[in-house]
């Protein structure tokens, strides 16, 4: 269970988030929507412990443990994983050796089991053997990069998986595969938090499982069901904000 209480975040000397409270319920797929520059990515990177995002106030808890000041490593080990908006390529580092190392850090896997698991989950997100034999994100399209993020989520099976814009720069086929991956994570008990500004991905997800949070100026201004997404698609953020008196 993730709880962010009264959180303040500063990036590059500017306060981006002030007094945010975000307690996404378990066994749901959460969607954070908001216009560009509203602070959604800042929230995700701050939650994952990025050193350039300074927590100026409040507290982040995961399953009752205070993770506010933990390193990215410790946060990941506590069960919160971030899928990047722009996953970087890492020169010369093969996806498989990397995933092996990551999974070795988790107890109870043998080398054979790890390779089997990578193959199985790789197939689930439609990644070929050839793609898995490449270096991290080297020569990958937007869709391939995002598939690799979801693959890592599936392999690690974290308590909470935040996916920062898993649908941006992604073709329709990738969108379907990514949605299927999210459904699978949900079934396995992961609380998935999706950051997006489009409704596209949500068309491929079971609306019953979705809770939508509208984000503006570093705050969640309203929370509702998937109908909120339709409303935004029809009217745009500004009108929805005006109508709910959220701005």
């Amino acid at each position, binding site marked *: 269970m993730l709880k962010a209480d009264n959180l303040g975040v500063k990036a590059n000397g500017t306060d981006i988030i002030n007094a945010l409270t975000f307690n996404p319920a378990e066994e749901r797929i959460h969607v954070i929507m908001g216009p560009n520059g509203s602070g959604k990515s800042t929230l995700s990177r701050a939650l994952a412990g990025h050193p350039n995002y300074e927590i100026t106030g409040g507290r982040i808890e995961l399953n009752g443990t205070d993770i506010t000041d933990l390193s990215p*490593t410790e946060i990941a080990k506590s069960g919160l994983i971030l899928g990047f908006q722009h996953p970087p390529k890492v020169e010369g580092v093969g996806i498989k050796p990397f995933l092996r190392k990551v999974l070795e850090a988790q107890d109870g896997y043998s080398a054979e089991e790890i390779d089997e698991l990578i193959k199985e989950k790789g197939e689930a997100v439609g990644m070929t053997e050839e793609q898995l034999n490449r270096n991290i994100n080297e020569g990958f399209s937007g869709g391939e990069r995002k598939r690799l993020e979801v693959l890592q989520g599936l392999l690690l099976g974290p308590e909470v998986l935040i996916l920062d814009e898993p649908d941006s720069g992604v073709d329709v086929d990738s969108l379907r595969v990514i949605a299927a991956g999210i459904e699978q994570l949900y079934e396995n008990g992961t609380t998935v938090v999706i950051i997006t500004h489009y409704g596209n991905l949500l068309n491929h997800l079971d609306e019953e499982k979705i809770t939508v949070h509208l984000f503006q100026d570093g705050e969640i201004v309203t929370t509702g069901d998937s109908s909120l997404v339709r409303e935004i698609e029809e009217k745009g953020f500004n009108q929805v904000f005006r109508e709910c008196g959220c701005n």
Partner: protein
Amino acid sequence: MVAINNLKTRSFDKTGIEKQIEEIVDRNDEPNWVTDLRYRAANAYDGAPLDDPVISDPLEFLTNHKETPADRIKSLEDLPEETKALLDKLGISELEQRAITGLTIQDDREMIDSSFRSQWEERGVIVAPMEDAVKEYPEVRERFSGLFTPEESKLLAYHTAIWSGGIFLRVKEGEKIDIPLHLFFLIQQEGLAQAPHIIIWAEEGSEVQLVEGCTAPVLPKTSLHLDMTELYIEEDARVDLTVLQNWPEYVHTRPTQRGTIEEGGELSITTVGLGPGKSNVTDPQYWVEANGRVEINSITLSKGESLVDLGGSIYLEGDGSSGANNSKGVIMDNSRTITRGVISAEAQETKGHISCDALVMNDGARMETYPGLSSSVDNAELSHEAAIGKIKEEELFYLMSRGLDEEEATQLIVQGFVNPVIEGLPNGFLDEVKQIIDLSVQGEM
């Protein structure tokens, strides 16, 4: 005052060299031409120029650093555990270890297993300790000092005067050797400088892959290592040479490599410098004939107070010849690394490329690169690229956000950085290299 000082030093030095030559000649019973060459070099020493950022006079430098050498190694059993472990990891059998280590252990000549040498000879490869080779194979005479003269520099004069140890390797015409040949040898001698001489001679159409590991478990503290490798790559021959260097931090190393690549020949040299010593200054030179190719790849892990200065001149003398000089450096602590490769296009339709990449691990570590390209023809293709930077924060955060700690993530990134250069190495060797890289990075964290 200055003049008198110089005079004093000089007369002392000369005696020093001659004394060393006498000792070597007494021990080796070598042919006259070898001894004559030694004295010619000794005479050239005074007049020879020296351009070195650290050492102003090799002899003066040495006489100022007299320290007791460690115990001599008399048999394989005396090898330090880590050296034995390294040989095991390289997959070198004990028999082979005896043969290989025996190559340069002067007092243990009987350790050289004659069956090892004759086995290779049956396959068309002559491999022999240089001291034996100068006596047994007359063809060594025309190749020894064929690509340099002792008059060129004080370091070469000194090397030629006092060389001992090293390997003569000759692959006969058309022979293709399908397993990598390990030239792993240990240097020990009681002198203050070590100067092994290596000749690699690949005859027309032959192919061989060589892995040369050079280490010195019993070097006197603060010593000078002056090795010379002469490479003769004949028409359409192909040589892949990987050199592992792992020197203790008190050793100054001045390796020299010279090579000729005849028509259609190919030479690829990969130097993996895991421990460059206190200072490592080198300026290898290669002459490439028509349609020949030379590729120099290097990785340098520099740490502590090391100074690494890597030159490298490639002369593209024949039409259609090509050359590449690719260096990668991982620069740590207060070390300083300089690369200054030069490629000269002197014939039609030649191609050359210089690249230099460096990961600077901390403030205080210094990296400089000065690529040199020159062309005297109008249709050469010459290019260079360089990138110096630190580990990208976003990459580090990415790897850490999957649960790897900072050290593991850094090791992975550094390995990825050097991987393109080392991935072709034999397996046991590759694992060893990776392990040493991991340990170096660990030491930094």
